């Protein structure tokens, strides 16, 4: 069968892009003819991925299947709405607009549109969330429960195994002997990075001054970033909190390998790939119990339910200093990674395709 995938952007090192490529590889292995179309195609993806406009030639191909990855509003959603092909939606979640209203009206409006349009997609034949949390959002948006399922993100370690850390960065991060806290992801309001900074402040000022916090991720909500930097300055943490911005894959690996603790205070996650990356790199995770975070962690990691800044900072201290506890947490996280094996995702994909008689 001809199975096409349509997505917002394809770039190396991006979780959804990797997911699309993994699905494509499985579909080919199962004997299907495939193609990937995307709104943005990074130079390294040219050849593997075609621009979304090229899908227009397939709009009338009623015998094909179109898999649409929905993670952000993109005008190419119209291709999914107008195609005569059979339609499978994979929902990666869209952050609720309320998180952005006071910070960036443009992004807030895009989130609003994205979520409004989600309701219009409920007439597709089958829809998948990459977590049960996302699946519940689909149902809340009007998708019929029996036409929904969960397809976990395909976790492949090949990428990390093939990517060596930047040696200079890794040794500089380890040189001082400081305890390194890490948080990874877009610097956006729903991640509540101000709480990460406050917990770190308690840890740094009252528990262990030889510590640093690295906030790794792209910074495009400028006013929010600005205010976070004001907070860091007000707390006198200039030299202890580092905003790296978006980093290369080699640098990302170095940050994970040099991290002693991963702290996630996010209020809204549809899956949260950095938790998985932390598990892979053996970094103990301390995370807010919200949205899809507990589902992604399973029984691994440690959760906090409210702040409690001092209690969370003390828990962080235990996870860093108590080697026995630390090793047990890391071992449980590794076991959780095994539970999220690609075989499980493969089975879920096959189950979804069975709804199309494939």
């Amino acid at each position, binding site marked *: 069968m001809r199975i096409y995938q349509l997505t917002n952007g394809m770039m190396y090192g991006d979780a959804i892009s990797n997911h699309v490529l993994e699905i494509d590889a499985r579909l080919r292995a199962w004997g299907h003819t495939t193609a990937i179309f995307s709104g943005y195609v990074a130079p390294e993806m040219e050849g593997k991925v075609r621009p979304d406009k090229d899908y227009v030639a397939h709009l009338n191909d009623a015998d094909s299947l179109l898999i649409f990855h929905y993670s952000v509003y993109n005008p190419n959603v119209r291709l999914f709405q107008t195609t005569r092909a059979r339609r499978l939606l994979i929902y990666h979640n869209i952050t609720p607009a309320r998180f952005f209203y006071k910070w960036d009206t443009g992004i807030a409006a895009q989130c609003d549109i994205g979520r409004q349009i989600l309701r219009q997609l409920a007439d597709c034949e089958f829809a998948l969330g990459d977590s049960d949390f996302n699946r519940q959002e689909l149902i809340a948006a009007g998708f019929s429960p029996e036409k929904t399922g969960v397809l976990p993100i395909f976790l492949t370690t090949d990428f990390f195994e093939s990517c060596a850390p930047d040696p200079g960065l890794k040794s500089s991060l380890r040189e001082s002997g400081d305890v390194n806290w890490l948080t990874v992801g877009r610097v956006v309001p729903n991640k509540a990075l101000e709480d990460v900074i406050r917990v770190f*402040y308690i840890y740094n000022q009252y528990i262990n001054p030889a510590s640093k916090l690295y906030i790794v991720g792209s910074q495009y909500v400028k006013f929010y970033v600005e205010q976070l930097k004001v907070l860091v300055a007000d707390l006198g943490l200039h030299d202890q909190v580092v905003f790296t911005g978006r980093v290369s894959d080699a640098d990302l690996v170095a940050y994970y390998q040099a991290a002693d603790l991963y702290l996630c205070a996010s209020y809204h996650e549809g899956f949260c790939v950095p938790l998985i990356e932390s598990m892979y790199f053996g970094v103990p995770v301390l995370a807010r119990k919200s949205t899809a975070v507990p589902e992604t962690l399973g029984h691994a990691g440690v959760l906090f339910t409210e702040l409690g800044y001092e*209690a969370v900072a003390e828990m962080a201290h235990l996870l860093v200093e108590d080697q026995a506890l630390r090793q047990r947490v890391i071992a449980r996280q590794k076991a959780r990674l095994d539970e999220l094996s690609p075989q499980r995702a493969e089975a879920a994909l096959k189950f979804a395709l069975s709804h199309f008689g494939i």
Partner: protein
Amino acid sequence: MISRAIDVIEIRDCELQPQTVIERLQSNLEQRWAGKESVDFVHSGPKALRPGHLMQVEPSIAALNFPGLNEALIDLTLHTQLDEPQFTSTVPVVGKLIVAIRSLWNRVSTKWYVLPMLWQQSDVNTRTATVLSSMAQWQEIQAQHTAALQHKVAKLEARLAKLESEEYR
């Protein structure tokens, strides 16, 4: 007041002996924080980031200087996408046939040519809205800086006035 560990921390891995960990945590909390007040984050740091303020929408300084700016930007973004007209007819009996013929004619004659242009224009509109939104953010940041500087200048002027008055005394 310092929160109790048991109210805050949740350990779901039974092999970690959660109760023991929580007890140790509580003991550490009591030792380190005995007699101390919780750090006051509610009244420190930028107001927009204080606990409980994250999602509270307050008028920004830039928006106060340019009333309706945020609403206009949201409205602009909501209207960036061009829609294909849907043919309808209120003519009884043959209305459906008219719609079908017009739709078919549109598909054959213009759809493949006009539709990509619609997308292109929508793309331009989206980018324009994004740039304007970035400019509004930049304006807000500058407005905050200006307000902070004005506050500083006012304080410095007050100190200067005090020093001058002491000098002449």
